[in-house]
Every structure is written in structure tokens, then in C-alpha cells.
């Protein structure tokens, strides 16, 4: 049961009536009886919210920060329902609309639109739909709720896709489409074509030339169909917030850019998100499915406050990869964790594969190290310097062990990782 402002006003007028006309028990009783009677009549005449039939349609996935539209179909088989309808979602689903006004005569249907702008990654499940049906007099009404399940998945935003065109251009350069590649490590035979003046004479295929009237040239292209395994650490080291998002989100961004680039380069990409157990696992999808399957798998991965078990990570990766591959490990560069958990177990991975360790650096540390105006800030600068030195030390240890380390600020980590991939490809180390 609900009452409206009108019932409040009626009761207020009742106070005036008692004060001015009937300052007796009878007056008070009369006011109470009138208000209760009017509300009861209204309540009995209001349409039933429980008998409404609701269903949904609309978006099921949206990139984080983009608007999604979910429509609610309301059908009324019973008495006229007039009042409010609230389509309740969790706060981070970002509902933009106030409660809908509803006026639904018998036998009609309405389509109500809810606009969502999710503020966090992951699945957002619709809560209940609450309908408040006010009676014809407008004094009281009935209220009831329905469960109309729907899920909108907020996908990782992939903000770094703006870097993709420039990296694809560099890939094409490597690919020999804009410039000629020379035979060497990391390239494979592509095709034979006619010699044009200016081509490198070292690439002339003399045997083929002998069979024809023209001089024939061999062209080379980077090796294709290499395997790239992207491993995202979803443990506690990825939970730390850098800027306005956790490390994990920056790592996802970098992983998506690398996946897009490597797919274009003809490599097979697989994805693993892992802390003490596997959180997301995509094994070598078809090239056109890479990005959709990755964003879907990553949408519900959140940083867990547990220490990542690198033994699980290494054994999972080794099990997946047959040939020599590129393993990109996106994690934090915490010296204690790297030295105690990662270094003892990473040996087999380094021996069989090319390992890149990418970590999101915190610009706050650079800021702390450079501001030194009072004693508090000087101790802060010393502490930040110590952190940086530790990171440099562990970077040096990893580099000596044979891994490539990429340690960049959040806005630079994705392009830097893509560049590392391209330079590895160019150097033929894949």
C-alpha cells in the first residue's frame, strides 16, 4: 500500500477542520474516518501491479563508457494501471532515467526504455522492476515488484585502439608491402615476382630467372602463424590503482592492442588470466573472433586479493604451447614477489619460449621523487627512489635471465608493448 501527497494534504486540511470547526473528539474521528475511507476506496480501485506482464529486449553487451539501451515491454491484462515504474539496476550500471511514468489501460502494451552507462567492467544484472499503481482518486495505491532478468555485460573499453593504425603501418613496412624485406632470420619465403630497377640484387632468384625470360625476384615476409600467449596476472599485484583504474584494466588494454596487432600480423593469439586459479582462458580463436572472444572473456575478470601462483601460470602456459612462442606476461614489478615467486619457476618458460614481462609503472612515484619542498616530501622522494631502484634491480635480474621487460606508464604501456612485439618480430626472435 502506498499513500500520495494528496492523502497528506487531505489529512492536513483535516487538522484545519478540527481546529476551526470541530474541536472535539468527534471532529478528529470524522477526519480519520474520511481519510481512511478515501484511501481504502482508492486502494481497492487501483489496478494490480502484480498482474502486469513484463519482458525485456535490447543490448546485452556494451563497451565500458558507452551507452546501452534496454527496453521493457509492459502488458496489462487487468484494470488500468496508472503510476510509476522503476527499473532497478545496480548503481554501477549507471541508469540515466528517473522512474518511468506509466499509464496503461486494460489490454494495452507499452515499451519503456532504460538507458545505461555502466561505470565498471563486468556483468550487470537487472534487479527487480517495481510498479506503483495509484488509484483513480489519486490518494492511495498498490505497489508490487517483478523479476525480469536481463544482463548487460560491460566490456573492457579498449581505449588503446587509437594506437592500432600507426602500429599496423609499421607492420606493413615489416611485411614487405611498402618496402622490400631482405632474407634473414624471422622471415619466410613469400612469393616470386618480376624484378624492377631498384630492387636488391641479392634477392634475385637465379634458378627461377633461368627458367624464364625475365629476371625474377624472391620476396620475403615476416614469419607467420607464430603463437603468442598473453598471460594477465589477476592477482593482488594487479589490484593496485594507477591513475583512475586498477593495473588490471591497463593490462587488459595493452593485451587487446597486442592481440589485434598480432592477429593482423598472422599470428595465433591465446589468452590466459590467472591468479591462484584460471579466471579467463581463450585458446587460439579464429582470427576474426580474437577481439570479441577476448573482451568477452575479460569482461568479468576482477583483481583478486590473493598472491598469484606462478607455478600454475607456468604450467598452464607450457601445456598450451607446443612450438617456440612469444609469452607476454602482464603483471606487476614487485621485487619481493618477482624474486620469491616468479624467478624460481620461470626457468622452463625462458628456455623454451620468448618471454616479455610487461608492467604498468605508477606516475605517482615519479611525481613523489621529483617534489622535494619539505621534509615530508623529501622522505617521500627517498622512498620513491628506493622503490624505483628496486624495480630497476629486478628488471636487470629478469633481463639477465633472458626476459624482455616493458615497464611504462599507463598511457604508454599498450603502445610500448606493441612496439616491443614489432621489434621482436623484426629481429626474427619469434
Amino acid at each position, binding site marked *: 500500500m502506498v499513500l500520495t501527497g494528496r492523502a497528506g494534504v487531505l489529512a492536513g486540511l483535516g487538522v484545519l477542520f478540527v481546529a476551526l470547526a470541530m474541536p472535539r473528539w468527534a471532529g478528529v474521528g470524522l477526519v480519520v474516518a474520511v481519510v481512511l475511507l478515501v484511501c481504502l476506496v482508492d486502494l481497492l480501485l487501483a489496478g494490480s501491479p502484480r498482474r502486469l506482464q513484463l519482458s525485456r529486449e535490447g543490448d546485452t553487451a556494451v563497451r565500458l563508457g558507452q551507452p546501452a539501451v534496454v527496453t521493457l515491454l509492459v502488458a496489462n491484462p487487468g484494470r488500468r494501471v496508472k503510476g510509476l515504474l522503476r527499473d532497478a539496476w545496480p548503481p554501477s550500471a549507471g541508469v540515466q532515467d528517473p522512474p518511468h511514468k506509466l499509464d496503461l489501460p486494460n489490454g494495452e502494451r507499452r515499451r519503456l526504455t532504460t538507458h545505461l552507462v555502466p561505470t565498471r567492467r563486468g556483468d550487470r544484472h537487472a534487479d527487480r522492476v517495481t510498479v506503483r499503481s495509484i488509484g483513480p482518486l489519486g490518494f492511495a495505491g498498490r505497489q508490487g515488484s517483478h523479476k525480469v532478468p536481463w544482463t548487460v555485460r560491460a566490456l573492457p573499453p579498449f581505449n588503446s585502439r587509437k594506437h592500432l593504425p600507426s602500429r599496423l603501418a609499421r607492420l606493413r613496412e615489416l611485411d614487405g608491402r611498402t618496402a622490400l624485406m631482405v632474407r634473414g632470420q624471422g622471415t619466410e619465403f613469400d612469393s616470386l615476382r618480376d624484378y624492377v630497377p631498384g630492387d636488391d640484387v641479392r634477392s634475385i632468384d637465379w634458378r627461377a630467372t633461368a627458367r624464364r625470360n625475365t629476371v625474377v625476384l624472391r620476396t620475403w615476409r615476416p614469419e607467420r602463424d607464430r603463437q603468442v600467449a598473453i598471460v594477465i596476472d589477476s592477482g593482488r599485484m594487479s589490484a*593496485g590503482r594507477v591513475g583512475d583504474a586498477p593495473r588490471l584494466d591497463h593490462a587488459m588494454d595493452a593485451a587487446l592492442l597486442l592481440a589485434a596487432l598480432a592477429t593482423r600480423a598472422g599470428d595465433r593469439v591465446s589468452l590466459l588470466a590467472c591468479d591462484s586459479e584460471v579466471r579467463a582462458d581463450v585458446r587460439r580463436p579464429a582470427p576474426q573472433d580474437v577481439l570479441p572472444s577476448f573482451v568477452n572473456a575479460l569482461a568479468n575478470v576482477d583483481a583478486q586479493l590473493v598472491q598469484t601462483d606462478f607455478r600454475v601460470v607456468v604450467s598452464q602456459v607450457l601445456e598450451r604451447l607446443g612450438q617456440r612462442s612469444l609469452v607476454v606476461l602482464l603483471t606487476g614489478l614487485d621485487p619481493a614477489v618477482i624474486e620469491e615467486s616468479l624467478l624460481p619457476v620461470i626457468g622452463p618458460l625462458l628456455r623454451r619460449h620468448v618471454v616479455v614481462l610487461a608492467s604498468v609503472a605508477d606516475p605517482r612515484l615519479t611525481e613523489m621523487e621529483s617534489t622535494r619542498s619539505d621534509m615530508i616530501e623529501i622522505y617521500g622522494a627517498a*622512498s620513491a627512489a628506493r622503490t624505483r631502484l628496486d624495480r630497476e634491480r629486478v628488471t636487470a635480474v629478469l633481463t639477465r635471465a633472458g626476459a624482455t621487460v616493458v615497464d611504462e606508464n599507463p598511457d604508454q604501456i599498450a603502445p610500448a608493448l606493441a612496439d616491443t612485439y614489432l621489434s621482436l618480430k623484426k629481429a626474427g626472435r619469434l
Partner: protein
Amino acid sequence: MSTAVGRSGTEAWRALRVPLLATGVVVLGVLVLLIAGAARTSGPFSPDSAEPAGAKALAALLKNHGVDVMGTEDLQTAVDSAAGKTLLVAPGGSLSRSDWQDIARAGWSHIVLIRPSAKALEVVAPGVLDASSTLPKDSRSPDCDLPAAVKAGTATVSGVSYSAPDSAIACYGDGINHTVIRLETGGQIVDVVGSTRTFTNAELADDGNAALALNLIGTHPELVWYLPQYETDGYDDGDKADGPPLVPPDVRYIAWALAFAAFVVAIWRGRRLGPVVPEPLPVIVHAAETTEGRARLYRRSRARDRAAAALRESALGKLHKAHGIPRRADPTAVVSTVAARTGRDPVLLYELLYGQPPADDSDLMFLSNQLDVLTLEVRHP
């Protein structure tokens, strides 16, 4: 497709009827017990009140002596014709002049007024005047011819005293004013008692108080014990009641109407459009948290040596990079290279880069500034 949440009206009724019935039975039982066992009157000088200011002891005493005591708060009982009975009017309340006239005309054989108002004295006991002086609490002898007082002897009295006309018998006073007065007007005996505490539970056992009470009040086999209330008619006849009541009588109905309106508004504003939607929130930890924590530890423990070592190592790292000095070069080689590039004094430079840890905070600040300047020089030569 949707499914409705919560219970329908029929289901709610089915689920609630047994608890509702049980609650109803309990409430009814409590009400019956209250009505059956509760005191009919309450407050100071009530025959049912066992508090120190009550007069249950006196009522019990009177009953033991064969007097039928009937406590009432209803004015009508005091006004109904009642020959051969005693009326006791307790202090308090606010009766109008016409009410007192009705009481006086009702035909009581005996009226006992306990600390009456000036208006009551004027109507019921003409000639008796409030002396506007109080007697201090003391054991006093009657000093009069009133048989009841003479039999009782000394009594503990205190409170208002009155000046009596010559026709009256005045007892228990200081010689001029008295606190127990007996008048006889037209076949009706009127007693005025100014000492309210003498007959209360607290003081009834003192001196001859109980005897005085029995002799004074228990003269007839039936006693109506009237506790005056605030009667609204006090204003209607244009008569000023004894001391204006603090709230006008109408306010109570307006207050009830207001309370009902507030209840309606509370229901109107209090009902939410559906429950609050809960959501598990992610943990927010700033990545630099540990570094900031270590800075606070440095500061709290005044770890100048560690802070200086970190700053020096950081500066050295930058110098190594800028001058292409091998990472494992010995200090003298580093100092000579940097001194040659920047034109600084090698001794001071050695002190700056490899010297003793700073002794106090200002030394650390100085060291930090010097290192800053040095690395900036290297970056922009």
C-alpha cells in the same frame, strides 16, 4: 518473461492471520487485566495511590472503620444530591465558580476541602480567607473545642493557614491563623484543611494525624472522595478558573489531528519505490600505497641514513646514465669524471655522493637539494 515478487494479498492474509489473532488475544487480555486490576484514580492525594503523596493508607484506614470510600474523578458524582454522605475534595484541578456552587447546593451533610482555592472558599466556606502565610512543619496541639481535634491531640501540620470568622472553630495554628477550620452553614458541616501532607501516606502515621483524619473525615458511613480535574467548562461561563491551564483545551484535539496527519505524511514519504539494490564493490588500493607507507616509516623513525642512501643511489644512477660511466665503476672514478664534466670541487663532490649520512633533517634537506641541482646540471649542461 516476468515473475511477480513477494506475496499477493490472499497469501499475505493467510500467512498473517494466525499471528494477528494471537496478537489480538494478547492485547485483549492485557486490556482486561488493566481495567480490572488498575487503580481507578491516580496522582497526589488519590485513595488508590501508594506513593508518599498518595492517600491509600487513609482510605484503607477509613474502610477498616466501616466507611465506604468511593474515589472518583467525575464532577457529576460530586454534584449529585447526596444527603447523609461526606464529600472529600482533594486539592488540584480547576473548577469554575458554578461548579463549586453546584457542589455546595448538592446537599452533602459534610464537606471536607483539602487546601481549597480562593474561589472554593468563597462559595463553599464563606468567611474563611487564605491568610497567604504558611505554617512551618511542626507538631502542634489543637488549641480549640473541636471534639475530633481534641481527641486526636497533637498532629504534624504544615502548609497553608486560614483566618476564620468568629462563628467557626479554628484549630492547629499559630494563634492568629489556623490550618483546620470547621464551619456550619445551613445544616451543612464544612471542614477546611490547609495542611495537605498531614493525611498522605508519608505522614499519616505521625503524631495523632491518623486519629484526626478518622475523626474529621469518617463522620458518615459513606464517603465520596473527589479528585477535581481540569474541567473545560471553566471558560464557557466567562468565569476565570483557578490559575489558567497551561494549554488551551482545544489544542489536544488539534494535536491528535496533527499526529494523524503526520502519520499519513510519514507513510507517504516513507514508502520507497522498490528496495535498494546492493552491489559488491571492488577494493580500491592505490598502487603507490606501499611507497607512501615506507615514506611515513622513514619519517617516523627519522631514518635519515636510509633516505640519504636512496637519494644518493638514485642520483648516481642518473649520473651513470648521463656520463656513460660503467655501473660498477669505483667512487673515485665516478667523482673524477663528474668533477671534470661539471667543474665542481672533487672533494665536495665525493662528500656529496659518498659522504657520511646527514646528522639532522636540515642536513638531509641540504643533501637532497644539492643532489637535485647536480642531476639537473647533468641533464641540462
